[in-house]
């Protein structure tokens, strides 16, 4: 049984400009110990998907609906606020791109960490402090005892990010939602943190949803990848299959846009023309159509569902088969 199972998740925001369908019918599941990469341009609904899983979509303006949203054998949609609080930060935890959104600037690092433990595990202060220091040590923070008495602003960006990761992992969650956890960091610090996440996953069997726009990070970390476009899944596949043989023109465009450290570095990049659509005013048919080079007449007439291609792959493209025969365009 998957640890997380989401069927037909829909999240909309009712704004002055109209209804924004930030997530529009997304289904996926996550196995224990697995890493699922989640990629797509800004505004495609990645963070909203994670926030919905955490029960953190503000309402109003947000409305969350799903046919199912199960964590183990519990229905996340049916939980009371109190039950949700006990799952959140404990069994499912989230780390954000900007550590200051989840660290309280007025509390010491130690206080924020021990609070998590006191709330969820009712341990004594002294025991909480011991475990907090150990948690900081686990994420490679030197002199953890001393750091416990510091405030977030006294730490460098890389240190703060590690504190937040330590906080996210303190209760050894079954599921970690990591939303651009290394985007604001230098590659050197990113490498430290990714290595750490993998080590912890190995030790505790944590399942991870990793949101990132860095396809290199996705390649190194993910078992499977979901590609999102305008609130829907464009493609889902095992990581190797996705990079070897993308079956959606959007995935292909993303892969072609990435500059590489080796190979032909003088040719122009294959950028995707235009920019992502306004979610309150989507084009008819396939939302990617205005930017697509494989467009046919049918693409304007019908919104493609996610077609099962077998082998754990699916693509929401009417021209998916033609695409499969065209090898090499994105490389």
């Amino acid at each position, binding site marked *: 049984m998957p640890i997380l199972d989401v069927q037909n998740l829909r999240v909309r925001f009712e704004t002055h400009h109209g209804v924004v369908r930030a997530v529009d019918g997304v289904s996926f599941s996550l196995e224990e110990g697995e890493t699922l990469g989640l990629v797509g341009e800004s505004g495609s609904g990645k963070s909203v998907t994670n926030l919905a899983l955490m029960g953190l979509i503000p309402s109003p303006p947000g409305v969350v609906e799903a046919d199912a949203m199960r964590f183990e054998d519990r229905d996340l949609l049916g939980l009371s606020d109190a039950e949700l609080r006990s799952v959140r930060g404990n069994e499912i935890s989230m780390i954000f791109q900007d550590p200051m959104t989840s660290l309280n600037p007025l509390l010491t690092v130690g206080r924020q960490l021990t609070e998590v433990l006191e709330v969820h595990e009712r341990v004594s202060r002294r025991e909480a402090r011991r475990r907090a220091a150990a948690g900081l040590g686990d994420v490679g923070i030197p002199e953890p005892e001393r750091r416990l008495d510091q405030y977030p602003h006294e730490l460098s960006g890389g240190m703060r990010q590690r504190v937040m990761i330590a906080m996210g992992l303190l209760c050894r969650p079954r599921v970690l939602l990591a939303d651009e956890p290394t985007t604001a960091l230098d590659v050197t610090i990113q490498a430290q943190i990714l290595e750490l996440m993998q080590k912890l996953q190995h030790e505790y069997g944590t399942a991870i949803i990793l949101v990132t726009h860095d396809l290199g990070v996705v390649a190194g970390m993910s078992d499977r990848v979901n590609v999102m476009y305008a609130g829907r899944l464009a493609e889902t596949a095992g990581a190797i299959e996705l990079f070897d043989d993308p079956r959606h023109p959007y995935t292909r465009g993303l892969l072609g*846009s990435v500059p590489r450290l080796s190979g032909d570095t003088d040719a122009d990049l294959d950028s995707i023309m235009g920019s992502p659509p306004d979610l309150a005013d989507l084009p008819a048919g396939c939302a990617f159509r205005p930017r697509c080079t494989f467009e046919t007449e049918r693409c304007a007439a019908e919104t493609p569902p996610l077609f099962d291609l077998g082998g754990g792959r699916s693509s929401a493209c009417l021209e998916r088969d033609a695409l499969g025969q065209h090898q090499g365009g994105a490389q």
Partner: protein
Amino acid sequence: MSAPLLEVRDLHKHFEVGSPGLFGGQQETLRAVDGVSFELARGETLGLVGESGCGKSTCARTLVGLYPPTSGQVMYEGEEISSLSHRDRAPFRRKIQMIFQDPYASLDPRQTVSSILTEPLRIHRLARPRQRRLRAMQLLDAVGLNPRHIHRFPHEFSGGQRQRIGIARALALEPDLIICDEPVSALDVSIQAQVVNLLGELQERFDLAYLFIAHDLAVVRHICDRVAVMYLGKVVELAERDALFDDPRHPYTRALLSAVPHPDPRIERGRERIVLEGDVPSPLDPPTGCRFHPRCVERGEVPDNRCVTVAPELGSRSACHLPGQA
């Protein structure tokens, strides 16, 4: 042989900063740029890379005259410009323009695109008032935006389009050199690729030189002719692009390159990486000898503790005591 377009000689930029927790306003010296030298030819792109806090932006700002240098020289076509008065510097300001990482923060939200693009022409008394608007429309066209959108405000454009406006503004004065400080770092890869391609196209068309600051090394490999690697205020390696990427000589360059994830699961999984420990130390109190020595995994190969006691000079390739690497 004619002088290079830009020559930077032993540039230093230090900041005097008050140290927290001390009475009597005690000052400490922060060595943000601490002896940087390089040349840049017309039409060439020099990359400037290194972790955050290494002094890249300070270097850029000192070159365009936003900060006076603490010492050292900036020569433009052989003429020393960093010691000129604000007024005498005006003609050179035109020739060296800058674009920034956050196009939103660098564009006045209350100005229309038209006034953003005509303002530099007005200040420098270029073109007659009536021609300025035409020129602004040509600039929009050159950067791939619709000239009819000239009366719109910055918030009516997407992030990538705003960066194009920033580029159009930099082009307005027909510069020879554009200093690009992380111009694509905030953009999605798809949009980043559009802007990278545009910069390449404009370079050919207007014979521009770029000093291109970035932390994405793959982007740097894509558009630079040569690359300088900075660490704690100093250049630790400077080389032709392919030499630097294919045969990095400084252990810091090797570590930086090794940290870049490859967008290919077959390569990326199980690849041996050099993982650097810790953060860049404080430029208020940089390490003795080679500034990189506390994080260097290769320094055991250098005898006599030289890395801790002697600062290495930048040789033909790098500033390192390891045999054969300089």
